[in-house]
């Protein structure tokens, strides 16, 4: 019989809640309270997440975010700033000691990205892993990923772009040199794609989630069983949302 992991479909949440849930699941899994977990989610309102090591004010135009009603949050994972609007976000939480997770961090990125690539294939999109942490389709980025390891547990979260508005993204992000902004925007438009752009048609969130579920099941040879957050996870997520992810101390710490 195949190993069973938990699948969480938590729908659309605020940035603060989304990041709090990922960390709460990590803690619960580390405590042995919940099985390895794959989660699919979205962002409402749209939000920018920045990497743990980034400077908030270097990366984000806070006034523009407020004008557009876009939230911003610091992740517990490294990596770059991401504008989350029309995308499916996944996370996977699993013990570092699990036999299906390579000990080597780069190898584990590749393995987990393999699940996303299988999911994309199911949608009719051939893709490649592009180290360090991207997946590309037709040479263009369609997914970005970030991993942390805490409490002997792996958390990797990442995006599958459903549609992308590069102009809006750059109205919210700061860039080092305003003079080359137009050129930079053109470059990024050439280097990024999305499910909609690649296939030439819209796909619903639920269709993409179904494909990604199959991707994870095939890559890891497991069965994903839809479940709920435990009471402990919900309590911890609320606490982390309030005391960490929605606070100035956390988001402006660098």
């Amino acid at each position, binding site marked *: 019989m195949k190993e069973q992991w938990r699948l969480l479909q938590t729908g659309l949440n605020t940035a603060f809640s989304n990041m709090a849930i990922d960390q709460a699941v990590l803690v619960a899994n580390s405590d042995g309270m919940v099985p390895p977990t794959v989660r699919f989610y979205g962002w409402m309102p749209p939000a920018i997440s920045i*990497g*743990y*090591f*980034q*400077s908030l004010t*270097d990366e984000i135009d806070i006034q523009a975010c407020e004008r557009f009603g876009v939230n911003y949050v610091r992740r*517990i*994972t*490294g*990596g*770059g*700033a991401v504008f989350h609007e029309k995308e499916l976000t996944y996370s996977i939480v699993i013990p570092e000691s699990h036999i299906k997770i390579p000990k080597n*961090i*780069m190898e584990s990125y590749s393995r987990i990205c393999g699940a996303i690539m299988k999911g994309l294939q199911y949608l009719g999109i051939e893709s490649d892993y592009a180290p*360090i*942490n991207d997946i590309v389709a037709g040479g263009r980025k369609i997914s970005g990923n*970030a*991993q*942390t*390891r*805490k409490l002997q547990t792996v958390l990797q979260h990442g995006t599958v772009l459903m549609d992308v508005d590069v102009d809006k993204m750059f109205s919210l992000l700061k860039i*080092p040199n305003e003079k080359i902004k137009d050129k930079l925007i053109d470059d990024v438009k050439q280097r990024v794609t999305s499910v909609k752009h690649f296939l030439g048609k819209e796909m619903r969130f639920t269709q993409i989630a179904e494909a990604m579920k199959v991707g994870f099941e095939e890559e890891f040879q497991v069965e994903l069983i839809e479940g709920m957050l435990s009471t402990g996870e919900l309590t911890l997520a609320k606490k982390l949302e309030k005391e960490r992810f929605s606070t100035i101390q956390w988001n402006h710490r*660098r």
Partner: protein
Amino acid sequence: MLTMRSQSIYKVPQGKLLKISLEYNQDNNVIKNIRITGDFFAYPEEAIERMEREINGTLLEKKQLLEKIHSIINVDHIHFIGLDAESLVQGILMCKQ
């Protein structure tokens, strides 16, 4: 004593974008405060804050910086992805005016 403040942006070869904010004493070139930011990865993440504290007081000079950073990496078992000790030193030295 004149405190110099400067910033650098350094694209790590085959890696990520490193941004350094630095305060140092212009008379003796000793680092007073450093902030290491960027879109790189480091495990464990919290070690970067210890590294910033440890670098304070170090001379703004290649050999001493490299020794210091290698020693912090070894003690804290830091694993960088998209960044390395040599690039950190490069980014820091770019702040020297």
